[in-house]
């Protein structure tokens, strides 16, 4: 197709001032996907990081322009595949807002529980991958053991493990599995027991702390300016939880704390995510015994048509604020759709906070930014 060497810089030559220019990615163990960073180094110290994106750009925005409002939901699972459920919820919420569809209470509560399970699953995977970035392999397996329980619950209820596509405009595609409640309770019980293992293996570990404390410090001002959201911004002391600011589904009736740390370093980002998992467990515990009976899907027309106008819906995914912006011309398909993905903005801060640190720190910083590449590329 095109000349690869044009894009991937020749790594055998030195930079203009004798710096090393190395390509971290597109295939690199620490980039978790096909992120490509061109890193300019002075010895071990990073002078500049330049992200090159687009290795898995599928142009989802263009694709959605030719899909109907029922169909385009499934594509969004493929953006941030670790919080696919939350992405689907965002689309459904937008359509429900645009068409003023009444969503049954049961659907709202189930959606909230599933969203929080997804968030835990995503953070579990992140802890494992993050520890692996820092060279500890074992926490990955422990984290996956708990994540496996969540994917089993998803498989039972939604019929798929990763890209569920369980949310439809108006509610849920089908009712929850009869075992849903018992399984979620079993998971909550096991999670509470096993979460101390991460404390022993990772949080308290002196090597881990020295690797992350004071590394990749992001100030609150920069976090706002760079548009960071989610745990990344909350670790810097910016309150930005969409579940609190603009509650959707059943979030307005559950009690939970927005986890905020102030140091803004990699360790704070780690702690925010660990505490967030506990908050998610808290939300699930409040809701799991109180799933109201009734319909699981509201009344909708067969063919959905959004009125002419603009719609915006924000939700809190595991990585931050996902915004969906739809310009409708009154047809069955969106005229223009824009996904404001949290990863894209979070990535843009990488050069700012990792500059001047060591290569090892880059891995810690990049790990705690929790980048999911399909989310960035879209």
């Amino acid at each position: 197709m095109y000349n690869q060497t044009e894009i991937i810089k020749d790594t055998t030559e030195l930079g203009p001032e004798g710096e090393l220019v190395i390509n971290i990615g597109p295939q690199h163990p620490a980039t978790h996907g096909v992120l490509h960073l061109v890193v300019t180094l002075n010895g071990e110290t990073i002078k500049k990081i330049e992200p090159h994106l687009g290795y898995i750009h599928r142009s989802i925005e263009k694709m959605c322009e030719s899909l109907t409002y029922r169909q385009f939901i499934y594509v969004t699972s493929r953006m941030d595949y670790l919080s696919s459920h939350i992405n689907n919820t965002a689309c459904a919420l937008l359509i429900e807002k645009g068409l003023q569809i009444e969503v049954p209470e049961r659907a709202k509560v189930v959606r909230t529980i599933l969203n929080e399970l997804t968030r835990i699953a995503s953070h579990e995977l992140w802890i494992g991958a993050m520890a692996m970035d820092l060279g500890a392999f074992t926490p990955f397996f422990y984290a996956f053991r708990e994540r496996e329980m969540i994917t089993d619950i998803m498989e039972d209820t939604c019929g798929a493990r990763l890209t569920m596509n369980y949310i439809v405009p108006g509610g849920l595609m089908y009712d929850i599995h009869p075992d849903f409640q018992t399984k979620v309770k079993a998971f909550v019980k096991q999670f509470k027991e096993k979460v101390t293992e991460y404390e022993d293996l990772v949080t308290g570990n002196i090597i881990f702390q020295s690797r992350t404390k004071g590394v990749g410090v992001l100030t609150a001002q920069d976090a706002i300016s760079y548009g960071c959201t989610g745990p990344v911004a909350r670790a810097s002391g910016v309150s930005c939880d969409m579940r609190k600011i603009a509650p959707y589904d059943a979030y307005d009736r559950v009690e939970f704390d927005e986890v905020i740390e102030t140091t803004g370093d990699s360790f704070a980002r780690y702690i925010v995510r660990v505490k967030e998992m506990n908050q998610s467990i808290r939300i699930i515990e409040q809701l799991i015994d109180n799933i109201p009976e009734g319909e699981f899907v509201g009344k909708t027309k067969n063919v959905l048509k959004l009125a002419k106008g603009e719609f915006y819906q924000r939700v809190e995914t595991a990585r931050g604020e996902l915004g969906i912006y739809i310009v409708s011309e009154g047809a069955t398909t969106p005229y223009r759709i824009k996904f404001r993905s949290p990863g894209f903005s979070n990535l843009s801060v990488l050069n700012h906070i990792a500059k001047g640190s060591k290569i090892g720190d880059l891995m810690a910083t990049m790990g705690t930014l929790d980048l999911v590449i399909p989310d960035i590329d879209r």
Partner: protein
Amino acid sequence: MFLKDYISDVVNGVSSLLKGMRKTGYYFTHSKEIITEQYPDNRATLKLADRFKGEVVMPHDENNEHTCTGCTACELACPNGTIKIITKFDITPEGKKKKAIDAFIYRLEMCTLCNLCITACPSDAIKMLPNFEHSVFDRSKLTKILNKPGSKIKEGIE
């Protein structure tokens, strides 16, 4: 003071490391914690969720009859053009022409298993099967015709 800090640094560091080693040591000595699934060997006991979305199938009853009317609702609902329905006209015993499916072409390689076709179907003619072992040596084998040869529509389904 400096010496005290130094020593407490060392002691805290070492104890945090030992804590981690205790945890891994526990798992090393407890083989019942192993969670490995030996997949091809455990086929017999492998239990898949009954809702698992594996592939689209068209159930036929013992008379080789299905309930698909050929209304193409699934074809329209599909986001990727996975389903193609070719219709034909049957002659009913009364001599009337009746629309029926000739071939329900399902391309598994393009399917994202989103379940939209199943929900769109008005006569429950297709369903998802919890089957995930789809690998074949030739891609053309993934293009399937779901209605069995010689099958016809069940009486009374419009």
